[in-house]
């Protein structure tokens, strides 16, 4: 069972990677409240896509789980699972739990 805290740790590692390459004003805070998508986000759409792809890779590295975050439904949803770090953690958690229940 992968805990929410462990998933949050994985996403923080992805944010660390992003922040190492970003100028100070564009860095992301390591918080569940950090906005990832929408008008208030520091990421542009390609930045978000890159973060999603890196999160998939990080989850595979950390937990040996293959999750596909970037499906058409998730990318198109009005109530996007990518809007904050917290909602992304919940989305990843639900996908991993779904795999375990299957």
């Amino acid at each position, binding site marked *: 069972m992968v805990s929410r805290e462990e998933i949050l740790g994985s996403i923080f590692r992805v944010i660390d990677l992003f922040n190492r390459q*970003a100028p100070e004003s564009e860095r992301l805070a390591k918080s569940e409240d950090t906005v990832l998508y929408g008008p208030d986000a520091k990421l542009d759409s*390609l930045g978000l896509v890159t973060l999603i*792809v890196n999160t998939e890779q990080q989850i595979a590295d950390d937990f040996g789980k293959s999750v596909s975050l970037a499906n*058409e439904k998730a990318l198109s949803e009005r109530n996007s699972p990518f809007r904050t770090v917290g909602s992304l953690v919940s989305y990843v958690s639900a996908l991993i739990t779904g795999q375990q229940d299957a």
Partner: protein
Amino acid sequence: MPDRPPGESSVARHYDAVTDAWQRVLGSNLHYGWFEEGDDLEAATQRLTDQMASMSPLPPGSDVLDVGCGVGTPALRLAASRGYKVTGISISSRGVDLARESATRASLAGTVRFEHLDALSTGFSDGSFHLIWLQESSHLIRDKTTLMSELYRLQRHPGQLLLCDLMLGRAIGLPEVYQRRDDLTILESVFGKVQAESIGSYGSYLAHAGFVEVETRDITEQCRPTVTWWKKNLHERRAEILRYISESDWSDFVRACDVIDRMFGEGFLTYQIMSAWKK
């Protein structure tokens, strides 16, 4: 005065790093060209500046703000051919240094000046300029609402804004960004963070800021040969260019040229000139 250091953003860092190499690839103008039969890259890039300038009825002596002036070539041409008094601003300190050297060499330092400033916070007074000129700089500025509002503030009344840039042929959503991520990542690695928007979005930003009489002209076909010339220069001047960028960056640039050409062909990417007025 500016409330943010202009050299701090990723765009500024990128342009400081690539300006020397880009002059060998893109030519001295650092812009796309407007090609007519028989033109080489130099003639076509000058033609784009001239065609854009011909859309302005403003007389010699008018004050012009060139936002994102690159290495200053269009600003110097506007001063020499139209008699404008031009202030060029850029967040790239390297670009500003080269532009100042060019102005001195061209004996135009009295009518053209270049400043290392951020377009979103220039510190200039309200109504400082008759003409605001953006040649391929707006796609690098993410906050276009603030940009257009600030430019409207700086615009004299009445005054004109002229803009040319790469624009998306239509609005795209996250699924398409995901689908095209490899191509878009190559473009970002070569050209820096690009905030391209659709033609409709530009119209909305301008209208929201208060600009009126917005006119748009699609010149994609006139500009498209530019990337063929970039590829030619990349191959012919490879050894010289590799003094400034790595082999891998050189290869990415070649790939980026192919990506842009394909995107032009698909109508995903277009090249537009826009004119708008403050009245």
